[in-house]
């Protein structure tokens, strides 16, 4: 959903705000839509949202920083989410995570130096009977291991 591509950022953000402002409690839908369009929530969005919703910039910042999903800087081009929750730990998720992070040379939330891959922890994907579970660019993977994650990432630039 990159409908804003090609437009100046401020104008694109305005369009998003305008299209969702009528909702009851519009802030989270607006933040999700901006992040979907720009892969993160640009600093420039804060005053625009604040003006539209009659909130201070600090209040908008407070909401963005509360939720794990919202980023203020872009992620890598590909996002790997590895489940860290108990059901996946029971079938070796810690080992999978150590291996994936070790191979890429990053820690949780880290991005590889070439900006290619970001690895995020996730606490449950609801795939608890087929763990360890992972999500690579939105695709769910059950009974995963480091080799499988490697194959998913192969060929992605």
């Amino acid at each position, binding site marked *: 959903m990159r409908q804003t591509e090609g437009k100046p950022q401020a104008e694109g953000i305005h369009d998003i705000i305008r299209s969702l402002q009528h909702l009851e409690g519009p802030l989270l839908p607006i933040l999700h839509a901006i992040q979907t369009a720009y892969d993160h929530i640009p600093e420039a969005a804060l005053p625009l949202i604040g003006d539209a919703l009659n909130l201070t910039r600090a209040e908008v910042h407070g909401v963005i920083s509360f*939720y794990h999903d919202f980023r203020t800087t872009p992620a890598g081009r590909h996002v790997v989410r590895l489940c860290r929750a108990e059901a996946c730990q029971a079938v070796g998720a810690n080992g999978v995570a150590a291996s994936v992070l070790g191979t890429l040379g990053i820690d949780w939330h880290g991005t590889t130096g070439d900006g290619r891959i970001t690895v995020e922890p996730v606490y449950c994907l609801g795939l608890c*009977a087929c763990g360890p*579970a992972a999500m690579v660019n939105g695709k769910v993977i059950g009974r995963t291991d480091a080799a499988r994650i490697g194959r998913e990432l192969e060929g992605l630039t």
Partner: protein
Amino acid sequence: MSRPLIKVYVPLDSAARALGADDVADAILREAEARDLSIELIRTGTRGMIWLEPLVEVDRGKGRIAYGPVTPDSVPAIFDGSADPLGPVEAIPFFARQTRLTFARCGVIDPLSLPDYETHGGLIGLRRALTMTPEAMVEEVKTSGLRGRGGAGFPTGIKWDTVRLTEADRKYIVCNADEGDSGTFADRMIMEGDPFCLIEGMIIAGLATGATRGFVYIRSEYPDAIAIMDRAIRIARETGLLGLDILGSGQTFEMEIRIGAGAYVCGEETSLLNSLEGKRGVVRAKPPLPALKGVFGKPTVVNNVISLATVPVIFEKGAAHYADFGLGRSRGTMPIQIAGNVAHGGLFETAFGMPLGDLVNDIGGGTASDRPVKAVQVGGPLGAYFAPHQFDTPFGYEDFDAEGGLIGHAGIVVFDDSADMLSMARFAMEFCAVESCGKCTPCRIGAVRGVETIDRIAAGDRSAPALLTDLCDTMRDGSLCALGGFTPYPVMSALRLFPDDFGLTTEAAE
């Protein structure tokens, strides 16, 4: 020449997809084309036997026969008739032993076909509700004995009655679909496999309480459930199930989906309400109860997905039918989710009362690793660990409470003897620290100190276990919500049941 149409059912549930169901569906279409066979491919929810996924059912005109787990490579054998079938799903012991009320349609129907839904009993409950007074509807739910399936177990009918009796210009039904507990996936399964059931339950809740608007707050980690619910709501709107004139009754109910943003604490109802309003998802002090002053300050029913999705069958079959199942004050059925290191993982809907050990060993088939079961955690990351000597505990709210645990959202996570319970206790504190909303001190600070104290135990500090116990008492008694208040359950049960893992002799722990 026309041959009888072959119907092939492949799940679209995300667990099935995570195990390759989409590739299997593609392979089936290719194979049918190569053989010049006319087939109808129907994507369904999952039947809940996750270890058999992707589970494919084929109906050649004589009923549905299951195969699984199917891979793209094994598809030709199914067409040849040389693949070993599992038989009808209803005859598979894991399935045959269940009582499917809430999940009766899940895995059977095309989740987005309203005609399919009605053919299988859908909307009967709503049509009956439309002939009843709100008071009678609430009475029906009270009689059913339905209690909140999200974990707290509060009687649903009493909550509804409070909202019904509160005067306001607007009231809301909020469905809590922020299913963040590890080991649970019942909400996801029903939203992906039978979304109209949840919609019907929310409409009935609206009619019973005078609420005309509903929100389903779904966690962002469930993109498939979000997409399916979204399409189902659209279909419901187009067909007049939702809107200003529900099924021609003149009654109104409108609903929409809201997406969470990765905060576990938003599964707590007051935090969820703040999140819906576009605020930080911090917990609110109660009172006021959400039933009196909920979202946007209006009377609000906040119910879990399974509570609401169970309402239609209560109205379809009658409250007494539902209440006939269960034990003591735990009435009806519970979709128990068996997960973690388990041979037969999946969703097992059954009347309350089955002993925990039967669920783990008999139904679940023991560990997937073939090693002895060391512990099971029941009720998500805030649930207590149970050791095998407690396996005769019947699955019920009060029975688990008496054992120092909780059933929560009914997830059971199995661990084999390689699990280190000190590190599981540490993880519970770490998780609480990561997810704390920060509003109350026992949770915000306590969780951080909890991690440090467990590290001291690991380093051999003999004074640390007493300190941890004291800290857990403070968190349990002083936290505003279940996150800080219940984190002591897994921590203290691990310490109590597995002192060896904490470097303590049994005597020292007691």
